[in-house]
């Protein structure tokens, strides 16, 4: 059905961004700016929830028929058979995304009004943040691949603007540039993937890059558009083998798209930008680099599940990369001392989990983890932001400790986040992580069936490490001695600086060590009233008074309620967020697995080994069609959805079948293993770091396996040098001048009359043109020779 409310979901943040840029820039009134920014996102959230849940809006999430709600604005491009619309659509997948993006986004906006209070670029920050929301919603709600790519690039651009928000800090600018460049390296994969999808569908006779079937009525005339995903979903599944990657078929398309995903979602080898991106303000880290943008890669893979499920090789690659990233990033995270760096590597690691889930065909589990991760990781980031704020912009955990006395609300909220990410039973992270691990163990997908057990071990080890490093973070921050009173590790200079800075006598200087994420107050200048809105509650006014003397005392202190209220809400969600997706094995059917039931019709299922319908010479087999019952051996495969392609209301969801009791008991056993693992991790971390909070980590880990250095040495420098010394010299001056020079010398040596033969630039250019001309003439001469041969024959 059509509902133009969708446009409001997308464009409200854009309007907010424009108002803040045009009006906010002049007034600099923080209340107004904060209100506009939060209001715009609130409107967007309201509209998104209306469409998702109410019958009037179209009930994109709760309706019986899994048909998307569409809104066609205009036909963007139509050249030949290539067509892309400017249109939005919300189906169940994008519905879930739109809801949590707008809601978590709203909370983070509110938090940011407190966090950024007093910053010189307040209006700019919120304009960027709103612009980001616009782009993210475009990405999620786009109804075709090209418009999705618009959002994809757009969020990259906003991420760039926001990482580099502190323009007076060199590392911020460098990090921003790094993020953008690395992302662009991934983006060429997306562009080529989109083109290959178009190419494939053209060959199938239905050229399209649309996600959904669109009727002539929806698109306003013409012939309507057929879904590219459905077209590809109807093709045979490709064989499993490395040669398929370069075969130019579905596997190639999937791999190309995944290259883009590794860039945006920070997977090996393109993850390097995300830890550096922590140079941005903390709310940005929470919103963009934890909860929303970085999961865009997962979104794309799940959205294109019809493509990936037809490419077992690609699924295998996704699973391996995901697992490798998960364990790699976790092991780096354990050795970081910067609180935000720990969380950054934790994010990379958790994203690895999500791709692992995609790779083993558990697309639903991946999205489930995206959602719970958005809650607890946003919580942890905002919590760390609150800590950094309370510590006067100190980010080094070695200079924290014992903060639980000073920041009780932050401490309580972060405890919830810590337990959730560690997989403590009944919290949100527990359900989603457990589901991923179980699906990994029990995978029947062609690509990963052989390595499922191994990937499971990797996942379990990662889970232990995750619990350990999160415990370390909590212990170093909230327990132990109050190390911020000591002056060590260069802290003196920094603290002295911070005091002078706080007292307004010294301008902010970025070059000092451990310059934290520090909003730029104008020294001595008066700042506007801190922004607050309805969500801040009645305490907002009290906080205002406190804000004035905010930077006076040495003691760390609790943050204002604009910051703590979002923390509490997110903590609540981190607890209950997982309850919508309790697996059958745990609930015994008492609580339906809402999440799985909702998503099932819109994602494709991975091909399974052992099912009927053999394909080609390999052991590759195709999963039973939408109408057939899954074989009994896979009765538990409820999470592997049945239908391929979009908009089909699949058969009865498998989760409602009573699964095999043996499988249930095995799944329960694995749940117990997960619980034990989480508790062991927490216990080990607690016992170790409680005693030695400042334990020196192995240098290899602390230096992130020297990956940045290796990249610099292996890629960046050679390209620069090659460009400087190679191509440019060759084409512009070097070689040609050398030849002209050499000729001249030779001539002089034989006492030639041509003694005026000297290097000269115009003449070198003419020589280059001549060489090119000779090459072209020679090339043509070869063909002329052939032509003459043909004629003479």
């Amino acid at each position, binding site marked *: 059905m059509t509902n133009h409310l969708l446009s409001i979901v997308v464009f409200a943040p854009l309007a907010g961004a424009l108002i803040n840029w045009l009006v906010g820039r002049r007034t600099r009134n923080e209340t107004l700016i904060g209100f506009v920014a939060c209001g715009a996102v609130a409107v967007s959230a309201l509209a998104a929830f209306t469409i998702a849940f109410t019958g009037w809006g179209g009930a994109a999430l709760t309706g019986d028929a899994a048909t998307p709600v569409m809104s066609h604005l205009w036909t963007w491009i139509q050249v030949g058979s290539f067509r892309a619309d400017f249109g939005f659509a919300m189906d169940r997948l994008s519905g879930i995304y739109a809801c949590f993006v707008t809601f978590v986004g709203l909370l983070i906006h509110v938090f940011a009004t407190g966090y950024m209070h007093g910053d010189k670029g307040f209006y700019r920050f919120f304009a960027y943040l709103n612009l980001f929301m616009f782009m993210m919603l475009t990405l999620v709600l786009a109804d075709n691949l090209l418009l999705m790519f618009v959002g994809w690039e757009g969020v990259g651009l906003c991420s760039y603007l926001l990482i580099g928000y502190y323009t007076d800090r060199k590392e911020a600018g460098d990090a921003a540039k790094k993020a953008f460049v690395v992302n662009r390296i991934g983006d060429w994969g997306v562009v080529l993937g989109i083109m290959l999808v178009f190419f494939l569908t053209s060959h199938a006779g239905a050229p399209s890059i649309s996600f959904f079937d669109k009727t002539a009525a929806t698109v306003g005339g013409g012939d309507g558009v057929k879904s590219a995903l459905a077209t590809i979903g109807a093709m045979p599944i490709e064989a499993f083998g490395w040669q398929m990657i370069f075969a130019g078929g579905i596997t190639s398309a999937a791999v190309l798209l995944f290259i883009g995903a590794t860039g945006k979602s920070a997977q090996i080898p393109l993850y390097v930008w995300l830890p550096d991106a922590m140079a941005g303000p903390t709310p940005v880290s929470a919103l963009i680099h934890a909860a929303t943008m970085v999961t865009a890669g997962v979104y794309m893979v799940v959205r294109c599940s019809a493509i990936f499920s037809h490419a077992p090789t690609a699924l295998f690659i996704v699973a391996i990369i995901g697992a490798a990233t998960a364990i790699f990033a976790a092991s780096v995270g354990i050795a970081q001392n910067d609180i935000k760096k720990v969380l950054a590597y934790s994010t990379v690691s958790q994203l690895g989990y999500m791709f692992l889930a995609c790779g083993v065909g558990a697309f639903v589990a991946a999205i489930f983890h995206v959602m719970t991760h958005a809650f607890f990781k946003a919580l942890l980031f905002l919590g760390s932001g609150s800590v950094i704020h309370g510590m006067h912009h100190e980010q080094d955990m070695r200079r924290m400790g014992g903060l639980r006395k000073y920041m009780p609300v932050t401490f309580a909220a972060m405890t919830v986040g810590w337990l959730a990410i560690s997989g403590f039973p009944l919290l949100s992270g527990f359900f989603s992580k457990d589901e991923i691990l179980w699906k990994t163990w029990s995978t029947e997908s062609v690509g990963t069936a052989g390595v499922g057990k191994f990937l499971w071990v990797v996942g379990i080890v990662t889970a232990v490490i995750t619990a350990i490093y999160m415990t370390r973070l909590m212990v170093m921050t909230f327990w132990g001695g109050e190390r911020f009173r000591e002056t060590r590790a260069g802290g003196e200079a920094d603290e002295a600086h911070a005091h002078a800075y706080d007292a307004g006598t010294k301008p902010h200087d970025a070059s000092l060590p451990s310059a934290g994420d520090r909003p730029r107050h104008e020294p001595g200048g008066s700042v506007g009233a801190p922004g607050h809105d309805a969500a801040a509650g009645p305490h907002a006014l009290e906080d205002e008074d406190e804000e004035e003397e905010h930077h006076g005392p040495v003691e760390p202190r609790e943050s204002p309620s604009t910051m703590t209220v979002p923390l509490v809400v997110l903590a609540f969600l981190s607890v209950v967020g997982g309850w919508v997706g309790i697996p059958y094995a745990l609930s015994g059917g008492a609580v339906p697995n809402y999440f799985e039931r909702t998503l099932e019709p819109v994602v494709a299922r991975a091909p399974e080994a052992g099912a009927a319908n053999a394909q080609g010479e390999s052991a590759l087999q195709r999963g039973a069609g939408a109408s057939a019952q899954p074989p009994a051996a896979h009765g538990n495969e409820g999470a592997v959805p049945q239908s391929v392609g979009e908009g089909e209301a699949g058969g009865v969801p498998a989760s409602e079948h009573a699964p095999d009791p043996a499988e249930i008991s095995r799944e329960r056993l694995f749940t117990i293993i997960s619980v034990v693992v989480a508790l062991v991790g927490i216990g080990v971390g607690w016992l170790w770091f409680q005693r030695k909070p400042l334990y020196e980590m192995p240098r290899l880990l602390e230096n992130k396996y020297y990956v940045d250095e290796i990249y610099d040495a292996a890629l960046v420098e050679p390209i620069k040098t090659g460009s400087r010394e190679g191509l440019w010299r060759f084409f512009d001056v070097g070689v040609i001048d050398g030849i002209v020079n050499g000729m001249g010398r030779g001539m002089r040596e034989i006492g030639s009359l041509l003694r*005026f033969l000297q290097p000269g630039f115009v003449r070198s250019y003419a020589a280059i043109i001549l060489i090119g001309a000779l090459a072209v003439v020679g090339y043509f001469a070869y063909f002329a020779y052939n032509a003459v041969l043909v004629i003479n024959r």
Partner: protein
Amino acid sequence: MIPLSWYLALSAVLFTIGVVGVIIKRNVISMFMCIELMLNAVNLTFVAFSSYFGDVTGQLFVFIVMTVAAAEAAVGLGIVIAIFRNRESLDVDDASVLRL
């Protein structure tokens, strides 16, 4: 009668002399004359074809080319004068401020 290929070979040789001249001459005026030589080699080609075919259009093109060459000469000498005023040198190799 002299065969067509002789004319074509002669004009190709003249053209090549012009090309080599542009590359090895340093004096702007000399380079300029070499370019004129290239154009006239082409004119010879046109005339040779025209005469051999008995088709007059080729000779008409020669007039057009000569007109263009004259215009080019006028502009070229203007540029040479401008550069000579500023630099007092006709050596093209002195004109290398622009490079990296």
